C-alpha cells in the first residue's frame, strides 16, 4: 500500500481561549475523510495545521510524505486548499484568476478547467463580485480542482449551497477519487454530505477527536433498541450503551457496539425486542458528542 496522504499524531495547539489536544488524523490514498464537528470544535485550526499555515505546539504532522511545518512549501504544491474565507479579487474576472493560478502551478489543466466551467455553469468573463455565494464557492473550487492536486483540503465546501450546487460539487469530489492516488479531507457540520461521500469519518468536539472509523463500521455498530420491559424487570447491561431512556414499559437503548447477540440477551432477561433501528450519521454524531461532553463534565 502507498503511504498515507495525511498522518498526524498527538497534535496540540493552545490559544488563549481554545485548545486543540491530542489530535490524530489519517487519510489513505484513494479515500475521502469527512471531518465532522460543531462550530468552534477545531476543524479549521486542524486544517490550517495540515496546510502548514499554523504551526502546532506539539505533535507530528506528515502530509504527502512531507514533514510540516518544515516542508510546507513542497507540500503545498500538491495540495488544493479551499476555505470559506478565501479571498478572490472582487473586481477581477474569473478568467483573470484562472490565468493567475495557471501561471503559478505547472499542473494546471486548461481542458479540465473548461469542462468545469461548463459543469458549474460559470463564465470566464464574470467578475467575482457579481457572483452569488454558490457561484463563488464553485469558482474557488474550479481554481483548485483544475490544478489536479493529489490532496484536497476543503473547509466546509458545501456550507450555504443550494441543493443543485451541492449536487454539482459532490459529483466533482467523487470524480477526484476515481484516481486511487488522490484523496480528500473535507470538514463539515452537514452530516448528510459526509454520510454520502466519505469513506472515513472523524468526529471532533471542543478540540478533541472523539471518534474515528470507517463509515460502514460507524453505521453498523450504532443502533437503537426499542424494548418492552415487563413490570419488575430491568434492562440487562449491554456493551457500548451510550444512553438508556425509559418511560413506563418502553425503554430505548442507544449502543455504539451493536451485535445481534444483544437481542438474545434482552429476550433471555425477559424483555421483548420491538425494533432495532439503524441510526443516521446525524443521530450518531449528536449522541456521540453529548455522551462525551457528559463524561468529561463528571
Amino acid at each position, binding site marked *: 500500500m502507498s503511504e498515507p496522504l495525511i498522518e498526524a499524531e498527538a497534535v496540540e495547539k493552545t490559544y488563549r481561549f481554545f485548545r486543540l489536544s491530542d489530535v490524530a488524523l489519517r487519510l489513505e490514498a484513494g479515500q475521502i475523510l469527512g471531518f465532522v464537528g460543531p462550530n468552534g470544535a477545531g476543524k479549521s485550526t486542524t486544517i490550517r495545521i495540515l496546510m502548514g499555515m499554523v504551526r502546532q505546539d506539539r505533535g507530528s504532522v506528515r502530509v504527502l510524505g512531507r514533514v510540516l511545518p518544515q516542508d510546507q512549501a513542497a507540500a503545498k504544491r500538491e495540495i488544493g486548499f479551499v476555505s470559506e474565507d478565501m479571498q478572490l479579487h472582487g473586481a477581477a474576472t474569473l478568467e483573470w484568476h484562472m490565468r493567475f493560478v495557471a501561471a503559478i502551478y505547472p499542473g494546471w489543466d486548461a481542458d479540465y478547467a473548461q469542462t468545469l466551467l461548463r459543469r458549474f455553469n460559470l463564465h470566464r468573463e464574470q467578475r467575482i463580485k457579481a457572483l452569488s455565494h454558490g457561484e463563488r464557492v464553485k469558482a474557488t473550487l474550479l481554481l483548485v480542482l483544475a490544478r489536479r492536486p493529489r490532496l484536497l483540503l476543503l473547509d466546509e465546501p458545501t456550507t450555504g449551497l443550494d441543493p443543485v450546487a451541492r449536487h454539482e460539487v459532490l*459529483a466533482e469530489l467523487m470524480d477526484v*477519487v476515481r484516481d486511487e492516488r488522490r484523496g480528500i479531507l473535507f470538514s463539515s457540520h452537514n452530516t448528510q454530505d459526509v454520510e*454520502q*461521500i466519505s469513506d472515513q469519518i472523524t468526529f471532533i468536539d471542543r478540540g478533541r477527536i472523539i471518534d474515528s472509523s470507517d463509515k*460502514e463500521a460507524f*453505521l453498523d455498530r450504532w443502533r437503537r433498541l426499542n424494548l418492552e420491559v415487563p413490570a419488575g424487570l430491568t434492562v440487562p447491561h449491554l456493551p457500548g450503551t451510550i444512553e438508556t431512556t425509559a418511560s413506563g414499559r418502553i425503554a430505548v437503548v442507544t449502543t455504539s457496539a451493536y451485535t445481534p447477540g444483544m437481542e438474545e440477551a434482552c429476550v433471555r432477561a425477559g424483555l*421483548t425486542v420491538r425494533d432495532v433501528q439503524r441510526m443516521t450519521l446525524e443521530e450518531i454524531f449528536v449522541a456521540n458528542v453529548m455522551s462525551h461532553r457528559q463524561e468529561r463534565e463528571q
Partner: protein
Amino acid sequence: MYLQIIEQIRRRIAVGDWPPGYELPSIRALAAAVQVSVITVKRAYLELEREGVIVTRQGKGSFVAESANLSTQLRQAELDEHLAAAARVGSVLGMSAGELSDRLRAAIAARDEKQS
C-alpha cells in the same frame, strides 16, 4: 445506503438489463456515477458476491454470475425477506405459527378470488 445500491443492482439483473456474464462498472466508476462513497459500493459488491449474484475475478473486474435462473432466485430471496419480516411482526403480536399460516392462507384465498 449500501442496501440501496444492492437493491439497484439486483433490480438491473432481475429485469435483464445486466445479463449473466455482464461486466459491472468498477467500484470507483459506480461510486462516482451514483455519488456514494467508494467504501459503500465496495461493501455492496462484497455482499452480492457472498450471495453468489456476482463474481469477482482478481484484476479483471466483477461480472453477473452465470446462473440461468438467477432472476428467479433473486425474486425468491426477496420473497424470503418479506416472509421473515412477517414472522417478526407476528411474534411481536404474539401470534403462533398456526395463526400466522392461517393469515397467509387467507391472503392467498383473497388473491385467488380477485383473479377469478
